[in-house]
C-alpha cells in the first residue's frame, strides 16, 4: 500500500469518516476507480455516497437521452428540459456529481458495456451494473472474473418497494476484527453464472422448479429407511434437489444422485434441477438458515426470480429493453406465464398474478427504497475497496412492505454449512 499521506484538505473534509474507517481505508478509497452502468434513482443514491466518501474516480455509462420523467427519484438535475436537452443521462449526472466533491474525478464513458473487451475492465476496482438484462449481467460478471486482477462486481435491482443487490468479490481476503485482534478471513463468492446454472434465476432448460409438497406425498415414491424410522430417503432421481424441510426442522439440504434423508411428515419444498445444469450445482452446500428469515426471503426470491423469468422472457420475445414493460403488457405477460408454466409442468400458483401486477405497475422507483439500497450498496463497495469491515455475501434484499433488510448467502460452493 502506498504510504502517501492525505492532504490537509482531505483530512479536514473526511475527518468524520476517517474516525469510522481509518486513514488507510481512506487512502485506498482515494485510489479506487468505480464503473457504473445504467443510471437509475438507486444508482444516483449510490453515486452520491461513494463520491462523498472520496473514491478516486467514478465512470458513468448510460447513453439514454434525458427526458423530464426519465428518473422519478433523481436529485441531480432540475425538471427543466433546457438544462439537459441533447444530453445523455450519464452526462447530466456526471456534471452534477462533480460538484459534490471536487476531489473525485467523475467522467462519462459512451457505448454499450457488454460490447467492451475484457481489458476495458482492468482500469476499475469495482463494477456496478444496473438497468440491464440477466444475460448482460452474466456476460459482464464473467468478463470481470476473467481479468487477472480482482474486480468487485455488483448488480442492483429496484422495483416498487423491493430492492436487491448481488455481490461477487470472487476470492476475497480481508482482516476480520475480533474482540481480541484481527484474523485473516477468506470468502469465496459464487459467480452470477454459477447461480444461474443453479437454476434459481434460470431460463429454459435450466429453469428451477419450485414447489411445496407435503412429504407424505413424496413418501409414496420414497423408500423408507429401516434404520431411522423418522427419516425417509428420497429415491435416486436424474434431477437434483435442494430440499427445505419445514416444521420442526428447517434445513437446506444439498442432494445429488445419492438421495438424502429427510424427516417424515415434514412439508418439503423441492427444487428440481434439470440434469443438464452445470457441475457446480452438485457441490452446492446450503447453510442452515433461520426459518423465519428464510421464509420471507424465499417468498420474495422465488417470486422475484420466477417473475423475472417471465418478464424477461417477454421482453426478449418482444425485443424490449429491460424494465420497459408496463401494466399494459399484463395480459400478454399472464398468457406467457401460463405457457411457460405448462411447458415446465410448473404450478402457476407460484407466480401469483397479484405480484406480477404489483411489479409491473410499480415500475416507478420508491425514493426511500432507493436511499436504502443505494446506501447499503455504497457501504459494500466502500468495504470491499477499503478492506475494512465484513462484506456481505452475496445477496441483500430489502422490502419496504415488511421493513427487513436481509442478507443471504446463496450458492456458495466452499462454505461448510453451519451445524444446526
Amino acid at each position: 500500500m502506498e504510504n502517501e499521506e492525505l492532504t490537509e484538505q482531505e483530512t479536514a473534509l473526511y475527518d468524520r469518516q476517517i474516525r469510522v474507517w481509518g486513514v488507510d481505508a481512506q487512502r485506498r478509497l482515494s485510489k479506487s476507480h468505480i464503473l457504473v452502468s445504467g443510471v437509475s434513482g438507486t444508482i444516483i443514491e449510490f453515486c452520491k455516497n461513494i463520491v462523498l466518501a472520496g473514491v478516486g474516480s467514478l465512470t458513468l455509462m448510460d447513453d439514454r437521452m434525458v427526458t423530464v420523467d426519465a428518473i422519478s427519484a433523481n436529485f441531480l438535475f432540475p425538471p427543466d428540459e433546457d438544462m439537459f436537452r441533447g444530453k445523455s443521462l450519464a452526462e447530466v449526472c456526471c456534471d452534477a456529481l462533480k460538484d459534490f466533491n471536487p476531489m473525485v474525478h467523475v467522467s462519462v464513458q459512451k457505448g454499450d458495456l457488454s460490447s467492451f473487451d475484457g481489458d476495458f475492465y482492468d482500469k476499475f476496482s469495482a463494477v456496478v451494473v444496473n438497468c440491464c438484462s440477466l444475460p448482460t449481467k452474466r456476460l459482464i460478471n464473467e468478463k470481470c472474473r476473467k481479468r487477472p486482477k480482482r474486480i468487485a462486481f455488483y448488480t442492483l435491482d429496484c422495483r416498487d418497494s423491493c430492492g436487491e443487490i448481488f455481490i461477487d468479490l470472487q476470492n476475497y481476503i480481508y482482516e476480520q476484527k475480533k474482540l481480541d485482534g484481527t484474523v485473516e478471513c477468506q470468502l469465496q463468492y459464487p459467480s452470477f453464472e454459477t447461480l444461474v446454472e443453479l437454476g434459481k434465476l434460470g431460463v429454459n432448460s435450466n429453469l428451477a422448479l419450485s414447489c411445496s409438497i407435503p412429504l407424505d406425498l413424496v413418501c409414496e415414491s420414497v423408500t423408507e429407511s429401516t434404520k431411522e424410522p423418522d427419516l425417509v430417503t428420497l429415491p435416486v432421481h436424474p434431477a437434483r434437489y435442494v430440499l427445505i424441510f419445514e416444521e420442526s426442522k428447517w434445513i437446506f439440504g444439498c442432494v445429488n444422485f445419492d438421495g438424502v434423508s429427510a424427516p417424515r411428515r415434514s412439508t418439503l419444498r423441492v427444487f428440481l434441477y434439470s440434469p443438464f445444469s452445470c457441475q457446480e450445482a452438485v457441490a452446492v452446500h446450503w447453510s442452515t438458515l433461520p426459518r423465519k428469515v428464510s421464509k420471507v426471503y424465499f417468498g420474495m426470491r422465488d417470486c422475484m426470480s420466477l417473475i423475472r423469468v417471465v418478464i424477461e422472457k417477454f421482453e426478449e420475445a418482444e425485443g424490449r429493453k429491460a424494465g420497459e414493460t408496463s401494466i399494459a403488457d399484463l395480459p400478454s405477460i399472464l398468457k406467457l406465464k401460463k405457457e411457460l408454466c405448462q411447458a415446465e409442468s410448473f404450478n402457476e400458483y407460484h407466480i401469483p398474478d397479484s405480484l406480477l401486477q404489483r411489479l409491473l405497475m410499480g415500475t416507478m422507483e420508491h425514493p426511500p427504497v432507493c436511499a436504502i439500497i443505494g446506501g447499503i450498496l455504497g457501504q459494500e463497495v466502500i468495504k470491499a475497496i477499503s478492506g475494512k469491515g465484513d462484506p456481505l455475501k452475496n445477496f441483500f434484499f430489502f422490502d419496504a412492505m415488511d421493513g427487513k433488510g436481509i442478507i443471504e448467502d446463496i450458492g456458495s460452493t466452499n462454505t461448510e454449512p453451519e451445524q444446526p
Partner: protein
Amino acid sequence: MEFEQQLEVIKSAKVLMVGAGGIGCELLKTLALSGFQDIHIIDMDTIEVSNLNRQFLFRQSHVGQSKAKVARDAVLRFRPNINITPYHANVKGPEFNIDFFKQFNVVLNGLDNLDARRHVNRLCLAAGVPLVESGTTGFLGQVTVHVKGKTECYECQPKPTPKSYPVCTITSTPSKFVHCIVWAKDLLFAKLFGDKNQGNDLNTRSSDGASSSDNAEDAFERRAGEDSEHYGRRIYDHVFGYNIEMALGNEEAWKNRDRPKPIYSGDVLPEKLSYQNGNVEDCPNGDPSSVSAMASLGLKNPQDIWSLRENTRVFLEAFKLFFGKREKEIGNLIFDKDDQLAVELVTAAANIRAASFGIPLHSLFEAKGIAGNIVHAVATTNAIIAGLIVIEAIKVLRGETNKYRMTYCLEHPARKMLLMPVEPFEPNKSCYVCSETPLSLEVNTRRSKLRDFVDKIVKSKLGMNLPIIMHGSTLLYEVGDDLEEDEVANYTANLEKVLAELPSPVTSGSVLKVEDLQQEFTCNINVKHRENFDKEKEPDGMLLSGWTEIPTPEKENDSSLGKEEIVSTPYQTASLGTENDDLEIIPAGVDIVPGGTKRKLSDISNATTSSSAGVLDVTVNSQKPEVIDDDNDVVVMIDGGNLNANKKKKMLE
C-alpha cells in the same frame, strides 16, 4: 403501485423536520423525492467543512451559512414546486411552542443531542403529534416511532446521561487517556486561558488541604517581564513536575497503583525551542484561528503519535503562540475542537500527563476526537436511516398503527438481517414523561442547595428548559422574561439556600412539583432525606429514582477503527452546542425488555422453534446491546452483554 397509492396522503401532509445535518440533508431530499409538498425545517447550526463529507446539500462555498436555509435552496433546485420553510433557530426557542407543533401531521427528528430530543418528545406529546425519531453513529443507526398512547414515548426507556468522572480520578489518579484529556481540557486549559473567576480544581489534590493552594495560585501568574517560553516552562514544571511530586507524597494513594513519574521540561528538552521548518513569523497574520504550533514546528501528520519530547515542544510552542498571537482572547477562551491551537495544547498536555502516569500516548487526531466529543459519521448510514424515516412517516400519515416498526441498522447482521424491524413498545406505564408517575429523590436536605437540585436534577436529568418548582402552594423557583424584579431576587436568593431552609422547607416526605410550561410537562418528586453519599459513585450527591438509568460501563477503546470514548465531565455545561451529528441507542440484535413490556420481532409466523433457529437465537442473545449516544451525551458501548444481567431479553413468536 403501493407507492402511487401513498401519494395522496403524502401530498396533503405538513411535516416538521428538526435538524438539517447528516440525517437532515438525506431526509429532506428523500421527502422531496417522495412527493412531500410542505416541509418545515428547524436547525440552529451553520455549515462547517467537516460536514461536507456527508451533508451533501452543502458545498465549500456555503461554510458559515445556515444549514436549514441552504438545505432548502438546494432541494428546491431539483423540486422547484414544493414548499420548504426554513428556521435558522434553536428548536428549544419559545416560538416553537405547542401551537406551532400542532400544525404538523408528523414531526421527524434528525437531531444530534439528547437534550433537544427530549424537548421535542415532550412538545410532540403535549401537541399530540406523532414523532419519528432517529440517530446514527458510524455504521449503526435506528429509527423509532412515537405516537402518544399507541407506542412508547422517546423517554419511556431510560436514556444514558452524560458520563461524569470523580474529581480525584481526574486530578490525582488518571488511569485512562480520557482522564488526561479531561484534565488538560477542563482543568489546565481552563485555568490558563479561561475565565479566572470560574472555580477550578487543578490544584486540588485528594491529600492536601487548602494550605498549599495559595502558593500554587502564584505559580500560574506571569511574572513581570517574563519571557513566554520561560513562563511556559514554569507552568510545565509546576503541573507535570511539582504537582506530581506533591501527589507522590501521599503514600496511601499509591499502595495499589503505579507511582507516576514527575516530568520537568529541562530534562526532556534542555535546549531552547528551535524551529525545523519556518517559524512563528511564517504564520499567516490576521486570522488567529490559523495559528498552529504544529505548523511552526514542522509537524504535519495529525495521525502521528508524538514522542514525549515532541509533545513538550508542542506544549511550549502552543503556549508561546497563545501569549504571542492571541493574548487578547486569554481569560475568555473556552475549549473548542475547531480551535487548532487549543487542540494542540490539550493534546500535548494530555500526552505529557499520560507519559507521567504510564498511559499510552495518542495522536492529535485521536485526542481531538475525545476532547471534542466528535461522533463519527458516514453518508451511507444517514441515507439508509432517512429512507427508513420516510417509510415510517408514510405509515404514520396513513394511520397504519399496526405496521409501525422501529428499525435498527446494524453493522453486523443479526439473524441475517442488516436492517432489523422490531414492533414498537407499548407506552411504559411508569414513564415520568408520558404517564404521571412520580419520581423519588434521595438527597441531603440539610446540605444540598436548591441550585444543586435545579442544575443536577431538573435541568440535567429531567431535561427541562424553563422550569417552575413548587412545594405545595409555594413557588420556590421560576425563570422567564416576565418576572418582576423582586421575584427574580427572591428566586436567586432561594437558589443559594439548602432545601431544608427554603421559605417552605423541603424535608423528607416533601413532594416537589416541577413544571416546564413550554414543554407542558409536569412531574412530581417525592423527597427523601439521606445523610451520606458516596463521592465516587454518586458525585451528584443526590439520587433520582423511579426512572432507572442505564449503567454506563466504559467500552473498550477500539483504536484501529478510531472510535472514541465520549466524555463529558462535571465541569462541562449541559450543552456546548457542538456540531456533532446524529445518534443514540442501538441494541445490536436484540432489545432490552424492561419489566413487562414486550418487544416483538416483526416476523410473527408460527410458533415452533426449530433447532437451527434456536442456535441462531443464542448467537443473537450473546450479542451485546450497544448503547450509544453522542455529543455531550455519552457514548457507551457495552461489550459483554453484562448490561442485561438483570434484564430479560425475549423474542416473541
